[in-house]
C-alpha cells in the first residue's frame, strides 16, 4: 500500500530525513519510535504534504500512485490521514460543519455524490456511539477551548468519519494522562480493519501497550536503524535510545 524508498527530506535547509525506507501493507500497524529530533514528525508532515517539507530525493508510492506529486487535499481524498500532535484551533467554525465540509470535499474529489445533512448526522451518531464520545463535541468550534485529551479524541473522531486507508498518528499520546491515553487507544483499536493501515509515531513505549503494533521501527538521524516486532519497543523502554547511538558510532 505504502512504499517509501530512499526518502530524503530537507526542512529549512537542514537535512532531516536521510534515506528512509519503509513498506506498509493493508491492515498493518507500524510503530515509528526514536529520540527527539530524529525526524518522526517530519515523516508525518512529508506524507501528508505540508508546505516546506518537500522530498529532495527518493520516492513514495501509495496504492500505485506517486504520493509526493499530489496536493495535500488530494492525498487526503486518496485516503491518507494525519492525526496531529498539536491539533489546530479554528475559532468560530463549528466542528460538525468542518467535518462535513471535509467529507464532502473528499467525496467530490473521488467523484462520489455529496452527503446531505441528515445522512451526515446519522453517520455522526453512529461513529460517536462506536467511539463512546459525547456529542457536545459537535456543537463546539474546531478544537477551540478543548482539553488536550478532547483534542486528541477529536482527531480520532475525524479519522472515524473520514475512513482513511492509511492513518498516521503523530505522537497521539503526548500530553495525555493514562486514562485519556487508554480512551484514545481504544478508539484507534476500534478503527483497525484488515484494510486500514496505521503508522503510529511515538516517543514512548507505553502507547504501544494499548495499540499493539505488528512492526516497530527505530528512527534515528533521519533513517530507520532498526526494525523488529513489539518486543523491540520493550527493549527501547528498558535501555533507552542511547544504545542505538552507540551502535551507530560503532558502525561508523
Amino acid at each position: 500500500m505504502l512504499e517509501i524508498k530512499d526518502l530524503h527530506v530537507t526542512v529549512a535547509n537542514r537535512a532531516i530525513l536521510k534515506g528512509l525506507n519503509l513498506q506498509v501493507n493493508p491492515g498493518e500497524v507500524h510503530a515509528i519510535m526514536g529520540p527527539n529530533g530524529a525526524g518522526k514528525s517530519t515523516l508525518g508532515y512529508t506524507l501528508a504534504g505540508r508546505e516546506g517539507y518537500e522530498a529532495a530525493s527518493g520516492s513514495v508510492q501509495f496504492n500505485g500512485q506517486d504520493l509526493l506529486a499530489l496536493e495535500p487535499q488530494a492525498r487526503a481524498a486518496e485516503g491518507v490521514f494525519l492525526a496531529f500532535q498539536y491539533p489546530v484551533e479554528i475559532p468560530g467554525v463549528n466542528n460538525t460543519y468542518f467535518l462535513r465540509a471535509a467529507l464532502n470535499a473528499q467525496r467530490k474529489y473521488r467523484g462520489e455524490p455529496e452527503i446531505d445533512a441528515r445522512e451526515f448526522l446519522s453517520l455522526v451518531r453512529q461513529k460517536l456511539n462506536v467511539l463512546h464520545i459525547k456529542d457536545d463535541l459537535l456543537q463546539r468550534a474546531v478544537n477551540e477551548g478543548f482539553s488536550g485529551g478532547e483534542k486528541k479524541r477529536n482527531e480520532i473522531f475525524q479519522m472515524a468519519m473520514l475512513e482513511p486507508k492509511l492513518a498516521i498518528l503523530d505522537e497521539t499520546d503526548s500530553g495525555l494522562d493514562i486514562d485519556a491515553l487508554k480512551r484514545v487507544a481504544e478508539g484507534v483499536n476500534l478503527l483497525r480493519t484488515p484494510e486500514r493501515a496505521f503508522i503510529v509515531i511515538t516517543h514512548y513505549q507505553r502507547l504501544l501497550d494499548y495499540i499493539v503494533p505488528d512492526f516497530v521501527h527505530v528512527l534515528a538521524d533521519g533513517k530507520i536503524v532498526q526494525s523488529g516486532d513489539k518486543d523491540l519497543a520493550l527493549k527501547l523502554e528498558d535501555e533507552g535510545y542511547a544504545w542505538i547511538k552507540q551502535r551507530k558510532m560503532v558502525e561508523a
Partner: protein
Amino acid sequence: MNQALNEAVVESTGMAVVDDALRRSYAHGFSTDIETELFAKGLSEATVRAISAKKNEPEWLCEWRLAAYRHWLTMTPPDWAKLRLEPIDFQAISYYAAPKRNQPKSLDEVDPKLLETFEKLGVPLHERARLAGVAVDVVFDSVSVGTTFKKELAEAGVVFCAISEAVRTHPEIIKQYLGTVVSTADNYFAALNSAVFSDGSFVFIPKGVRCPMELSTYFRINARDTGQFERTLIICEDDAYVSYLEGCTAPMRDENQLHAAVVELVTLARAEIKYSTVQNWYPGDENGKGGIYNFVTKRGECRGERSKISWTQVETGSAITWKYPSCVLIGAHSSGEFYSVALTHHYQQADTGTKMIHIGAHTKSKIISKGISAGRGQNTYRGLVKIEKSAIGARNFTQCDSLLIGKQCGAHTFPYIEVKQPNAVLEHEATTSKISDDQLFYCLSRGISEEDAVSLIVDGFCKQVFKELPMEFAVEARKLLEVSLEGAVG
C-alpha cells in the same frame, strides 16, 4: 479625559502567499443601457434649486438645502481618517441622474429594462418578492423606481416609500424629523448630502406597531460620472419595531464615483430599529483603478426610554469606505449595538467603526467589529465611546478583532474613550490574528481546498456578526465574502 488608547498598526508577516491574486470577480459590474436624464456636471446654488424643482419640493425644503449648501462651501473635507485618496473634484460630478421613463404609478408601469436589471441583481420587484416576504424599495441613480407591498404595509399603518414621495405625502413628519439626528452642518459630506440629496427611503412605524415584514432598500448607481446622494429616514414611535436592510451595487467603471449618503434613525419609548447593510459597491480592480468612494453618515437617536438601535454592517465593496454608524443614547435604559464585518482586498481602504454616545442613565452599548485585510487592503477600526456625566450606570462592551491574509495588508485600531461619569463600566478587547499556516494545512490535510479553507476560517471569524443578520442576508453576506476573497491566497 480624551485619549486615544492605542494605535496598533500591524503589518502581517510570515504567511506564504503569492501575490499574483486572481482577478476578483465582481458579479454586479454590468451597466444598464437606459435613457437617462442627466444634469450637467457641476455644483452651484442653481444645481441645488434645480434638484429641488425636479422633485417639486416645497419652498422650506429648498431653503433648507440652500442653507446646507452655503454652509458646505465654508467647510473643508475631513483629513483625519487613515485613507489615501486623490482630492475629489466636486464640479466634475453630475448631481442628478434619472431613468427617463420615470414616475410610475405602480410597479406595472416600471420600465421593463429596470425590472430586468434588478432581477439580474437578485432583487425581485415582482412575484418573487411576494414569496420572500420582504418589502423592497429600489433606488436607481437619483430616483426611487418602485416600492413593493405598499398596500399590505399601509394596512398595518406602516409608511414605506421614497423620501421624495414622503415630502409630499407626509410633510409634517419630514419637517419634524429631517436633519434632527444628522444636522445639515454635521460634517462635510453630510452637508453636501443635505444640499443635493436626490432620493432614498422613508419609513414610519406608528405607535405600537411591529412592522409585519422586513423592509429593504436596494441602491444601484448606474449612470457614468454621477454621484449618489441618498437620504434615509426611519422613525419608530413608542413600542414600534422594524427590521430594515439595505444593499448596494454599481457597474465596474475606471473612474471613481462618489456616494455620500445620510441615514437618520429615531426610536421613541421602547421602540426598536434593527438596521442591516450589505455594502457591495464596486471596489475597483485589482490594481486599485476605479471603485466607489463611500462617505456615509449614519446615526440613530434612542430618544425614548428603553429603546434600542442596532446596526449590523457587512462592508465588502467600495474603493474607500468612511463610515461610522452611531447611536446617541438619550432615553434612560436605552441601548445601542454595532456589529461590523469590513473586508478590504487589493487596494481597498476602509476607515470604519462607530460612536456610542451615552447620555441617559443606565444606557448600554455593545460593539463587535471584525476587520479582514487581504492583498494590499488597509483596514481601520475607529470608534468612540463617550459617557456623559448624566449617564449614571452606563455600560459598554467593545470587541474589535482583525484578521490578516497575506503580507502586504494592514490592520489599524483607533479606539477613543471619553468618560465623564465615574461609575460607568467599560470593557475593551482587541485581537489581531492572521490565518496561520497551521490552520491552512490542517484544513488541507482533511481534504478541504485552500480557497474553501480561507472561506471557512473567515466565516468562523465573522460568526458573531453574521448571526445578527436576517437569514437570507447572512447567506448573501457569506457568499459575498467568499467572492471578495477570491485569489487572496494562492
